[in-house]
């Protein structure tokens, strides 16, 4: 049993919902392969991958913030409206007062922060449930969008459009690929290897048995393989296209927030508040401050997502942000977060969001109508969470066992002495459980 958990942990990282994440990653791979075959290879073309990233990056950015909100035990229904409101404010400011676009972005983030402070105040310091505060916010800021924009569309200047529709520029010699993207890929590979090395070192320092070398090998091979593949795809798109700027913003945010939630005191506090607010408070966690910051952060990210969408659409319109909150919430739950809070990871939510995005994209490539797409997405959400609930009831994630068993046998056959620790810990556990 412990060998299986070992493999999960070692192959897919993270601490909590490993099984869940493994399940989601397999689902993602399955969806990609399915559509890759079904669409005759269109899914993994450069053009399509680039389009998917720029199309869904704003939803994934929302999912980052939403994950933290949901982990803390709240929900935010207002993100779409906040995004739309920020979009129109920024667009109007740039159009009517002709402020330069970098200032426009700063203004947008500021608007997000102010809105977030407003919502955070009600949630954290007054104690109104976030569901209500953000439901109110949803109406408030949607109305605000229409009031300011007169329900009209307002175009944004060219420079601004880059954050949503721009790509890494072409520099350096003609390699047949986008050079900056190649560089980025190289950095990613180095980063992965370095991280793996550091993780092994950490395990050794803990006196814990580091993962067997072959596991590390597979893990690195898989990850580097994926990165190389993605790099070549993104670097090999039509000239002028490469990794979208919005994709780079997304990657930076994912890395930063993953690190924050996993490794810092602030991140720990969010999980503590969501897991048991009273216990967290009695352990010295400043409950109100955590709740305030989580809500505020969400609105800032929503503002950013709104600006990216506006940039990509070249204009801010009255329909911006409609039902984005639902997409973001769905991504988080598909990614394994618990409805009651306290559980979930950024990477899980991103995978969840990608599952939805690729599903959407694949079905559209197949020419399936948006009505059917919605039905299918609804079912996927329901089944993903139902499967989660079911496997939790069963106590074990059976797919994991099935997938890991061959490895386990392999190990037993090949290693000279039987894995003694495994049996020891098993009996230990039995005693504790009994």
């Amino acid at each position, binding site marked *: 049993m412990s060998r299986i958990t070992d493999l999960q942990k070692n192959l897919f990282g993270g601490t909590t919902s490993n099984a869940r994440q493994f399940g989601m990653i397999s689902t993602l791979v399955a969806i990609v392969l399915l559509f890759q075959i079904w669409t005759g290879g269109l899914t993994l073309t450069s053009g399509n991958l680039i389009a998917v990233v720029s199309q869904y990056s704003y939803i994934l950015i929302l999912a980052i913030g939403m994950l933290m909100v949901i982990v803390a035990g709240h929900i935010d229904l207002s993100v779409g409206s906040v995004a739309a409101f920020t979009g129109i404010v920024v667009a109007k400011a740039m159009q009517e007062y002709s402020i330069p676009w970098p200032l426009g972005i700063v203004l947008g983030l500021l608007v997000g922060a102010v809105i977030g402070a407003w919502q955070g105040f009600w949630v954290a310091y007054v104690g109104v449930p976030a569901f209500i505060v953000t439901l109110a916010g949803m109406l408030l800021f949607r109305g605000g969008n229409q009031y300011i924009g007169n329900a009209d569309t307002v175009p944004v200047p060219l420079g601004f459009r880059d954050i949503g529709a721009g790509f890494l520029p072409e520099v350096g010699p003609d390699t047949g690929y986008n050079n900056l993207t190649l560089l980025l890929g190289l950095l990613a590979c180095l980063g992965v290897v370095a991280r793996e090395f550091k993780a092994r070192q950490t395990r050794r320092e803990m006196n814990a048995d580091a993962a067997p070398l072959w596991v590390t090998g597979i893990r690195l091979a898989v990850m580097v393989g994926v990165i190389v593949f993605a790099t070549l795809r993104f670097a090999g798109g039509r000239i002028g296209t490469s990794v979208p700027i919005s994709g780079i913003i997304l990657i930076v945010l994912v890395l930063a927030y993953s690190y924050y939630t996993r490794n810092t005191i602030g991140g720990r506090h969010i*999980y503590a508040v969501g897991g048991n607010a009273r216990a967290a408070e009695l352990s*010295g966690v400043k409950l109100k401050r955590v709740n305030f910051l989580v809500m505020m952060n969400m609105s800032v990210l929503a503002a950013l997502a709104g600006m990216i969408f506006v940039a990509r659409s070249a204009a801010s319109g009255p329909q911006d942000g409609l039902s984005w909150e639902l997409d973001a919430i769905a991504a988080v739950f598909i990614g394994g977060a618990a409805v009651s809070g306290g559980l979930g990871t950024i990477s899980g939510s991103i995978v969840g969001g990608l599952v939805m995005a690729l599903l959407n994209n694949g079905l559209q490539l197949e020419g399936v109508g948006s009505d059917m797409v919605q039905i299918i997405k609804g079912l996927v959400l329901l089944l993903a969470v139902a499967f989660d609930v079911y496997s939790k009831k069963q106590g074990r994630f059976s797919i994991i066992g099935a997938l890991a068993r061959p490895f386990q046998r392999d190990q037993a056959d090949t290693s000279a002495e039987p894995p003694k620790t495994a049996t020891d810990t098993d009996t230990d556990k039995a005693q504790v459980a009994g």
Partner: protein
Amino acid sequence: MTRPPTLLEMRSITKTFPGVRALADVSLVVAEGEIHAICGENGAGKSTLMKVLSGVHPHGSYTGDIVYRGENVQFHDIRASEQAGIVIIHQELALVPGMSITENLFLGNEPRRRGSIDWKTAQRRALELMEQVGLHEDPDTLIKDIGVGKQQLVEIAKAFAKDVKLLILDEPTAALNEADSQHLLDLLRGFRERGITSIIISHKLNEIEAVADTITILRDGRTIESLDVRADGVNEDRIVQGMVGRELNSRFPDHTPDIGEVFFEVRDWTVKHPSSEDRLVCKGSGFTVRRGEIVGFAGLMGAGRTELAMSLFGRSYGHYVSGQVFKDGREIQLKSVPDAIRNGLAYVSEDRKSIGLNLLDDIKTSMVAAKLSKIARRRVVDPVREHRVAEEYRQSLRIKTPSVDEGVVKLSGGNQQKVVLAKWMFTDPDLLILDEPTRGIDVGAKYEIYGIIQRLVDQGKGVIVISSELPELIGLCDRIYTVFEGAITGEVTRQDANPELLMKKMTSLTKTATP
């Protein structure tokens, strides 16, 4: 002495869970009309045995026979066992807080007339049932408005509504105060006179000794022995010996106190109730703690001990009115939990699961949760140090777990309590306040926890122990304060402490002078 006829016989019951043998060849013989106690440490298999009996683990999932009233019975679910008159009352009460006593009594079993609920009959039957268990309340009172003790009675009355022949009580007095416990035990004796058989599972050995006719002791999923209380001259030590498999010379580890100067003092501590403005939960309390001293707080449930502790711990309860706290001669401000932690206070709450731990966390995360800054560099947690700290505590507190990466939810109550203790020891406190530190914990683990407390004071820390079990306070503490209705009513030293004296001070307001 002729033994009455046998009501229930469970023969060589064996029940295995994947990887664990919970029961191995267990036998149990219960005579008609007796009070039969089942004792054993946590994990000995008591609850599993009762789940087999009541059909929670259905027939076929175990081996062995159950003979009930002379027949070989096979229960496939709880309904089947209830129909046979076997009713089990769990530790966690199955009542709906927002419904009235009547509604709860007949939940799922409502008397009907022409398709709708016949509330008149229900009302009348409810009064009858409540009379049987000595519960004198308006049947329309909501469950949440009556105390735990009375809720327990409602649960028992519910059993009577189902025409009970064999009543099984799992830790019935764990959450009750002395008076309520006493009432419940009297009730059981009354049932015995009316010919109702009871099985009682309890950690409170003094109660078992007082009330049981027969005691069956389980250990590691096996029946160890069955004792006839009167004939065998059973006492607590005898039971403990059976449970732990060795003779316990003492229930408390040997300890020579090394008590120093007063370093912590509270004066005139007054706190208002959080919702009703005119109610005081602490009335001008004052007390002191010396270095190396274990100070006990005795009082009935609701006397205000927990409220006093929590309000001191960063004003986590009620509204502060007045009072001062001195540490090492200087006045300190404890306006928030971080303040309290910074000033070297630690509070281990009485309710581990609902406010002590985040049950989603693993062991190492829980242990460092109250002072993350100690293992962090520039607000970033260092996993190596975290792991090392957790390993140290796992070893020094002898926490039974294969790894500190396991979830706390998998641990037994005693081990969870050790994790909570580790969490607070990690904050380097000077004063630990332990609220009911051994509630719901088996004898062996209690002994270990007493040892931990003694080691803490040997390091020169002060420890406050709040407990409802007087023998525990008397055995462990160097000095005991008694609390009654929010006020400190007395101070008793180890030499003078005895249950009678404490009980008297816990129930009256004759205030003795406190320093």
